[in-house]
C-alpha cells in the first residue's frame, strides 16, 4: 500500500520532539549561535526525549527498534527547532547507531548500554575530511593491518564534541573500503585540536579537527569485528538524516517568512498579497514537500531492505541540499533588508542551509 501518514507512535514522538524544538531549541538558538555555546541543560533535555534509547533494543539497554522512517520524522522536527542544537542532542547516535547497524555482538554489548544508559555523554564519530573533493567512499585517512592491530593515520574535520569525547568512531580507508574503527579517548597518537572549527554556520556546535598519528587499535575495535562491515547502509542512513535535517531547517525558514509576509505592509497591502512574494512561498512549500516524500521513501526503503535504498538516499540527500539552499535563500528574500539582520533567524537558516551539501556525517537515523 501507499500511505503517507505517520503511525500513532511516530506521531507521539514527533509531537514530543516538536514541543522541545519549539519551546527549548528555538528560543535558545540565536543566543547559542552568537555566543557559540549550547547550554548543557538544553542538550540534556533533548536527550531525555529518548530518540536513541527508543531505537535501541532492550537487550542493549534501550526500549525499542530502530526505524529510519521514524528517525527521519524526528530529525526533521528537531532540526526545525535549531540545527546546531539538534546535532548536539543526537551526537551520541553517530557512535551508537553504526554499532547497532553493523557492530559485532561483542561491540553492541560493550558499548550500547553505556551510551544509551545514562545521561548524554560525548560519544561521537569522525567521517569528514578537510578537502574540497571529500568523498566518504574514498577517504584519505588510512587504516592498515600491522601485527594484529589496525594503525590509523590521517586527519578528520568537523568532529562534534571530539574534545572530551569518551570514544570516537573513526572512519578510515582500508584497502579502498571505508571502515569504522572505535578509538578510545586516551589512544596514543590521537590529538584533538585546541581550537574549534570556524564555519559559515553551525557556530553553536563544538566541532574539532582530529589527528590520527599512527593510532593503534585492536582488531576487535573494527566495526563489525574482524570481518568488518558494509559501509553503504551507514552512509545511506547518514544521507537520510541529512536530508531530514535539511527539511527541518527549510520548514523553519518557510514558516518564519510566511508569518512575516502576512504582517508586513507595503503599497497598502500585506506583502503576502503580492504574487511575487506569494509565489516564492508557494514554491518553497512545494519544494519542501517534494523532497520530504523522496526522503521518506528512501527511509522506508532502508527499513524494508530494498535493493535501491542507497541510491534513493543519495538522491534524497542531493535533492535536499539544493532544496535547503533555495528555500532558505528565499526565506531571507521575503524579509528583505530585515532578513539580513541577525535579529531575525532567517539569515542563520540560510547559512545553515548551505551546509547540507558538504556536511553529511553529522547525523544518522
Amino acid at each position: 500500500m501507499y500511505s503517507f501518514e505517520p503511525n500513532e507512535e511516530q506521531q507521539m514522538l514527533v509531537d514530543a520532539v516538536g514541543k522541545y524544538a519549539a519551546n527549548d531549541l528555538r528560543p535558545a538558538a540565536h543566543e547559542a549561535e552568537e555566543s557559540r555555546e549550547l547550554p548543557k541543560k538544553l542538550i540534556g533535555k533533548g536527550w531525555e526525549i529518548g530518540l536513541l534509547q527508543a531505537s535501541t533494543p532492550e537487550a542493549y539497554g534501550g526500549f525499542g527498534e530502530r526505524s529510519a522512517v521514524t528517525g527521519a520524522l524526528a530529525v526533521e522536527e528537531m532540526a526545525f527547532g535549531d540545527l546546531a542544537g539538534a546535532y548536539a542532542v543526537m551526537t551520541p547516535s553517530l557512535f551508537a547507531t553504526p554499532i547497532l547497524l553493523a557492530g559485532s555482538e561483542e561491540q553492541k554489548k560493550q558499548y550500547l548500554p553505556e551510551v544509551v544508559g545514562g545521561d548524554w555523554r560525548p560519544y561521537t564519530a569522525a567521517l569528514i575530511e578537510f578537502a574540497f573533493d571529500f568523498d566518504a567512499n574514498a577517504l584519505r585517512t588510512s587504516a592498515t593491518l600491522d601485527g594484529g592491530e589496525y594503525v590509523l593515520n590521517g586527519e578528520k574535520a568537523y568532529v562534534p564534541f571530539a574534545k572530551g569525547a569518551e570514544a570516537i568512531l573513526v572512519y578510515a580507508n582500508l584497502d579502498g573500503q571505508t571502515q569504522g574503527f572505535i578509538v578510545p579517548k586516551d589512544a596514543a597518537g590521537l590529538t584533538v585540536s585546541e581550537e574549534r572549527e570556524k564555519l559559515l554556520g553551525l557556530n553553536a556546535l563544538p566541532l574539532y579537527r582530529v589527528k590520527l598519528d599512527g593510532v593503534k587499535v585492536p582488531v576487535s575495535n573494527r566495526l563489525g569485528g574482524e570481518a568488518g562491515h558494509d559501509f553503504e547502509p551507514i552512509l545511506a542512513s547518514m544521507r537520510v538524516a541529512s536530508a531530514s535535517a535539511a527539511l527541518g531547517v527549510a520548514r523553519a525558514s518557510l514558516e518564519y517568512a510566511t508569518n512575516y509576509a502576512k504582517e508586513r505592509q507595503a503599497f497598502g497591502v500585506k506583502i503576502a498579497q503580492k504574487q511575487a512574494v506569494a509565489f516564492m512561498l508557494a514554491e518553497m512549500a512545494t519544494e519542501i514537500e517534494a523532497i520530504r516524500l523522496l526522503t521518506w521513501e528512501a527511509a522506508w526503503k532502508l527499513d524494508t531492505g530494498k535493493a535501491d535504498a542507497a541510491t534513493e538516499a543519495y538522491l534524497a540527500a542531493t535533492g535536499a541540499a539544493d532544496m535547503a539552499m533555495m528555500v532558505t535563500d528565499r526565506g531571507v528574500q521575503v524579509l528583505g533588508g530585515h532578513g539580513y539582520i541577525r535579529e531575525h533567524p532567517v539569515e542563520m537558516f540560510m547559512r545553515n542551509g548551505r551546509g547540507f551539501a558538504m556536511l553529511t556525517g553529522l547525523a544518522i537515523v
Partner: protein
Amino acid sequence: MTIEFEAPKPVVQMQTVLQTVAENMMRPVSREFDENEHSIPWSYIEFMHTAMKSMGGGNGLTPREDKPKEGAEKRPPIGYQLLAAQIEMLAWGDVGFYLITPGGGLGGAAVQAAGTPEQRAKFLARFAEEKPTYAAMCMTEAGAGSDTSAIRTKAVLDESTNEWVINGEKIFVTGGDKSFNAYEQLGKGFIVVWASIDPTAGRAGMRAFVVESGTPGVKVTKLEHKMGIRASDTAAISLVDARVPFDHILGSPTVEKTTTGFKGAMATFDATRPLVAASGIGVARAALEFLKEKLAENGVQIRYGLPRNKLTSVERDVIDMEIMVKSAWLMVLKAVWMADNKKPNALESSMSKVRAGDVTTKVTQKAVEILGPLGYSREFLLEKWFRDAKITDIYEGTGQINRLVVARQILGYSGSELR
C-alpha cells in the same frame, strides 16, 4: 495509518499491462499521428475500449469504487491511485493518445464531482457500453481562460418548456470533436458546458450543463493546430439557442448567495489536477529513460553516490532530473491517496500540479539539450515529448494559477485577498 511506499498489487499489475500497450500500440505509431494532425488512431481507440471492458472496467479512465472480492481482506480504497498509475503509464507511451483513451474524461469527472447520484447513473453508464464513448469539459472561452469567472456563456430557463437555453462560444475543448460529433465507430457522448444562470451573480451564478452529442444549435467550429499532443483533438464549440432538459444542470438550479456552483468546478480540479500531473510525469519519465539509454549506448554511466563536485555536468543533470521526476511522482501519489481516503487535498493537488508542470518541462528541455543534434532530431520521439510536455504547465490551471492556489492555502487567504 503509516508511512509506506509499496505499490499496491493491482497498481503494479496495471502498470505491467499498460506498459505493453504503450510499447506496442502507442510508440510505434506516435510519430505518424503527430505528423498527421486530426487523423484518428482508431485501432488504438478500439483496442483500449475492448481491453478496458474485458478487464472489468469499461468505464474508461474514471476512478472506480473497487469492490474487494468476497472474503478478501478489507483494504483502503485505491481508485484514484490506480487511475494515476494508469495515466502515467499511458502518457509514458504517448500523452496525446492517452488523452483520446475512450471514457468520460474531464466531462465525466465533472458529472462525478458535481452531479447527483441520479445524474451520475444517467450520464455515466454509457462509457461501459458497446462502443467507445467520450465526454469533454467546456469552460474556457476566448475572453475567459485562467479567469473562469469571466465566462460569458449564458443559460436561461425557458419555463414554457422547462428547458435551459444556452448561448456562447467555447474554445480549447479537449476531446470536443469525439464527444460531440457523430462517428460511426463511437457511442453517443456529451459535453459539459459551463455557463452563467445569473450574470450579475458572478461565481455564484456559474453552473455546468450536460449537453448531449448532436444537440441542435451546437457546432464544432474549429479544430486547433497545436505544438504537441496532436493526436488529441482540441475543439472550438459554439452554442446558439441550444436547448437542454431541465435536469441536465449539475448542482442547484437556483442562485444562492453562495459560490457552490463555482466550488463544484473547483472540486473537479482537486480531483483532476494530480491526474494531469501524472500525465506530465509519464512524458518526463519517457524522456529521462530515453536520455539514459542513449547515454549508456555511448558509454556514459551515471555514477550515483559520488560527491557532486566529482560528477560530470551531464551526470549532475541526470541525477537532478531523476530527483525531480521521482519526487514529482510521489507528490501525485500523495494527492491521489488523499483523494482515495476522502481527505481534503486542495493544497497537495495543486502542489503536485505545480511541481509536475515545472519538472515535465525542465526534464524534457534538458534531455533535448544534453543529446544535442540527436535530441533535436525528429528521428527520435524526444523532440515530440519536448513539445507534448509543455501543455502540462498550461491546462488544468497554469503553473501560476496553481501557485496562487498553493499560496492561498498556506497563507489562509481567500481569492480576494490574493489575486
